[in-house]
């Protein structure tokens, strides 16, 4: 679980062009100013490509944190 969250956090950091390590497992649209609605689309596009998980519209709208994105990954 922790590993998956670390992978997602690194991906979010790279999309938002933030230094690796500055995005923590608790990061979300609520607490990261760079994570706006356009960034959310870019994060989801990158997430889908990197982990091979297809996101539906509902998931794109609601998976707005590292934890909720990581929860989409298979065990």
């Amino acid at each position, binding site marked *: 679980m922790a590993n998956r969250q670390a992978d997602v956090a690194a991906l979010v950091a790279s999309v938002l062009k933030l230094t690796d390590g500055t995005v923590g497992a608790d990061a979300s649209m609520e607490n990261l100013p760079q994570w706006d609605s356009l960034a959310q689309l*870019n994060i989801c596009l990158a997430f889908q*490509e990197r982990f091979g998980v297809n996101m539906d519209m509902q998931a794109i*709208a609601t998976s707005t944190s590292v934890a909720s994105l990581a929860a989409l990954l298979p065990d």
Partner: protein
Amino acid sequence: MRTLLLSNINMQPLVAFLKPWDVVCGEFNSMLLDLSNPASAAASPEFGRILCLYDTDTLLGDAFYGEGAPVQCELFLDELELFAKAHPDKVIVATTFCVGARRCLNFADPLSPHSLLAIEARLNDRLIGIARANLNILLFDIGSLIRRFGEDVLLTDSFWYAGRIRYTNFMFRALAERLHQAADAYAGKSRKVLILDLDNTLWGGIVGEAGPNGIALSEEGVGRCYRDFQRAVKALQRTGVLLAIASKNNPADLDEVFRTSTMMVLRREDFACIEVNWNPKPQNILNIAEALNLGIDSFVFIDDSRVEREMVRAALPDVAIPDFPASVESLPAWLLYDVAPAWFGRYNITAEDLAKTSQYKKIEERQKLSRSLDLDAFLENLQIECVIHVDPVSQINRIAQMTEKTNQFNLTTRRYQIPQIQRFLDSPDHAILLLEYKDRFGSEGAVGLAIIDFFESRIDTFLISCRVIGRRIENLILGKVCDLFRERGRNRIIGEFIPTRKNQQVAHFFDVHGFSLLSTDADGRKLYERIIA
């Protein structure tokens, strides 16, 4: 140069993939408005390149659902044409129309009066006509990209409804790569020479062991892979790529293959240079560079042997060396999908491209003649005839290509694209001189170029193609340059030399042609003047 990205869908994710281009995304769905509004960002001099990457299905509007005419598409074409004419100095990259696979009329579509297949063809006909008449439009065939990977991989409905993003990141990545390649091709930036190995590259098996009849090269089975590969190589050659062979083999074996094989698509005369011997390949590649008088940074090397590739890579890092495909059946597709667009991209194919191999082969014949005579007798014996054209509008592609590709005999190495050449042709303050050369061995086409600026009394560009260096044709061009300045009542010409890694052979051109040095700056750039009576 900054780039403005216009669309009718959300293309913002493409911006990151387009690096190192400096790209700004227009407002959402502002493409038509930006093209038509003279106060828009698109019209601003800040942007030298405008990308019009639209989604055809969306632009079709109701016509996509079989209702009415494709009004927005026609409007886009109107605006594109007006914009291209109003901004000859901008490069406008426009995608072709590409209707998706979803058809409301399903099997009835092709024959229906509302056929999307027919609408697409009609719109593309008109678009191609506009692009032919406006050379600052770079027409980009997005359909070939979508066909290659398929809509299931490239399109996404969830992101479309979540945020008007039609494409997956896979598509954005592939699209950015192809756009970079197309822009390089448009600018004339491509390599010149394809160097090929023989065994397990041009045919299957080892000719030295199996003999000319034992190699795999045929219309069936594995042999068909190699024969189709040769067909694709031959097609590349017809776009102006020079072919050469670097192979460890007995020359007699290759002779016999050329003489006896009915399955060789490539013949001896298709190769500008052949190095078949037992020397190390880096040595043979340097020999090819010397024979063709071209730098190894214009070479691409294809060899199935990883060891040979690594040896060349280590010795000659400027040579491009693509990884060979893992399976032989991928060979023809690999050349056309990957190698050709990456290194031999072409946008316009000129008459010089078509005749390239024969021109380079004549270099060898002339070199033999030159070894037997002194220079004066050699030049007289060649029976050189040159014609100099002033502002030859029909040769605009070749003129831009010469500024992009000439490195050695080039006094200022200024690279110009078609829009800039168009501006020189249109300007009363500039003249373009283009020299066409022929001698008793045949025509070389356009090989000498000068661009002069009457307003500043300055020679902006002066270059000679490397294959005719040493024939004194520069004197003819310089003479004509002086004539034109005299006709304009000018009595002073400013000459300029800008040193590069490759143009040292002309460092003293102005010194030996009656110019006197005015100044040298810290970068080695020299200004000269010559007073003409």
